[in-house]
């Protein structure tokens, strides 16, 4: 008598909650984490950016009025902020093409059956895994005025030296980041190269194509989707620089020539206690990165 309604109830429960509702409990800690660490701060960031937000003593409740786009206006008319976005543009123009070309060329060289592959892999990959603070310390010494790089260059050494020269500070950071991140992109390309069918290379060879022609007409189109990924990741990395300008060029120096938006978020939001304009810079940065990624995606698809 009771069997049928009980089965109905189980079926109903299965339809509403799923066959193993305990799964919701298993996923709950992760969902709480996402709510507290991502969703709430994301909403809070938008709130701060549109309000006259400032830090108060604990327990003191002061009105923080809605100010519309005021924070964005003051950010977009701040020459420091505009300069930081221009600096990022300089960085990207150097870093992104260099990254894509070097990563693809080195991955192609590694892919075609050389010996000591794992030794090369370690050499290329270790900078990516190592803390930027460590490597920035080393580069700072190598590129200092009396450092090894200048003593090798001798009379060709730039004056003022790399990191204190406003024309060279950002390019030096771009070189550093290219060097640090390249191993990761080489690995991405290596995985992609293994999916390019051998037959395409072989048929190109029977058509009399030389190594360069095969690289251009078989390899490059074969890894196009990974190139898009590399472009987007390199743009995101470049837009989010903080450690490098903070340490390598001593706080975005000389005189703001290597300041980045994230460095300004730190300086304005935390050092100068203006979280509202800092949040506005953050939102602008995300919008710019999003647009650039769309462009990268579009350009690479048509090319």
């Amino acid at each position: 008598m009771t069997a049928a309604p009980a089965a109905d109830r189980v079926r109903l429960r299965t339809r509403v909650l799923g066959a193993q509702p305990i799964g919701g409990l298993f996923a709950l800690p992760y969902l709480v984490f996402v709510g507290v660490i991502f969703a709430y701060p994301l909403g809070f960031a938008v709130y701060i950016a549109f309000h006259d937000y400032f830090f108060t003593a604990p327990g003191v409740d002061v009105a923080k009025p809605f100010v519309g786009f005021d924070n964005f206006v003051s950010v977009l008319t701040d020459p420091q902020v505009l300069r930081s976005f221009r600096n990022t543009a300089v960085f990207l123009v150097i870093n992104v093409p260099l990254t894509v070309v070097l990563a693809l060329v080195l991955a192609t060289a590694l892919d075609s059956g050389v010996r000591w592959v794992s030794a090369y892999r370690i050499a290329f990959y270790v900078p990516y895994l190592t803390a930027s603070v460590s490597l920035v310390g080393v580069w700072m010494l190598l590129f200092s005025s009396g450092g090894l790089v200048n003593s090798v260059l001798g009379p060709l050494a730039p004056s003022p030296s790399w990191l204190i020269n406003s024309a060279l500070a950002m390019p030096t950071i771009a070189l550093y980041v290219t060097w640090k991140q390249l191993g990761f992109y080489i690995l991405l390309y290596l995985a992609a190269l293994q999916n390019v069918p051998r037959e395409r290379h072989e048929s190109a060879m029977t058509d009399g194509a030389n190594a360069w022609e095969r690289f251009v007409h078989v390899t490059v189109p074969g890894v196009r989707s990974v190139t898009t990924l590399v472009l987007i990741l390199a743009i995101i990395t470049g837009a989010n620089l903080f450690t490098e300008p903070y340490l390598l060029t001593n706080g975005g120096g000389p005189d703001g020539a290597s300041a980045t938006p994230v460095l300004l978020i730190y300086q304005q939001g935390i050092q100068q206690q203006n979280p509202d304009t800092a949040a506005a810079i953050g939102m602008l940065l995300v919008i710019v990165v999003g647009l650039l990624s769309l462009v990268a995606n579009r350009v690479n698809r048509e090319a």
Partner: protein
Amino acid sequence: MGRPRFVWVRYLLLTTAALIFAFPFYFMVVGAFQEAPTNTPDNLFPTSGWTLGNFAAIDARVDLVRSLLNSLIFTSGVLLGTVVFGLLAGYAMARLDFRGRGATWVLMLLVQMVPFQLLMIPLYVQITRGFGLGDTYLGMIAPFAINTTAVFIFTQFFKALPQEMFEAARIDGAGELRILTSIAAPLVRPALVTVILVTFIGPWNEFLWPFLITKDASLQPMAVSLANYISNVAQSTANPNGAILAGAAALAFPVVVLFVLFQRYFTASDLGTAVKG
């Protein structure tokens, strides 16, 4: 592929690149043990002047052992959260049919797209002022407590296990938690190693977040201590180069050793997961 006479070009290219890549590490390790790290090319292979004094010099200004211990506590906290809650979430996503699974999956993809820099200011306000967790290990760990990439890796590995095994265990009356801990988790041990390695690097190398929320030097992880030494202390020191390199080597050493030992676990497909989601 390619004609044999071009092979040497390939080796030349790779070897030159590898030397450029490895050189700063060579400079770091040799300089860390040199009384006066060289600034000239003719002195790149020193035969004398070895010392441990650089480590003592940096240790006198920032407590090396304490800083490395702080890095370890920070990293272990993240690993613990990621392994425990990541296994639970990954198992649920791969093997359990529950309401909201699809939405959770979408959420995992969205999380990968939110840049930390956008969250930096609100998280700082929330964690230091809202939760009062400034200058605590918990505040340091919280934003990284469950690595979403790890949840993806666990999900993939759990999905690859045969369905019959789970059905048999359920018929035998095993609860889901028991299936996870005694059957499923031991079978995905390679995933566990990969997750631990991939997750370790993040907090160990992280600078920005612990730098923001730790003012107390006795709580700062090694990356923050070294950065403070470089930007504040070094200028007032007579010969800071050796000390900087010693600190850099101490921070880099654990990760490099882990990578060389467990190289085969760092595969491109896992990294692909890490970025593509």
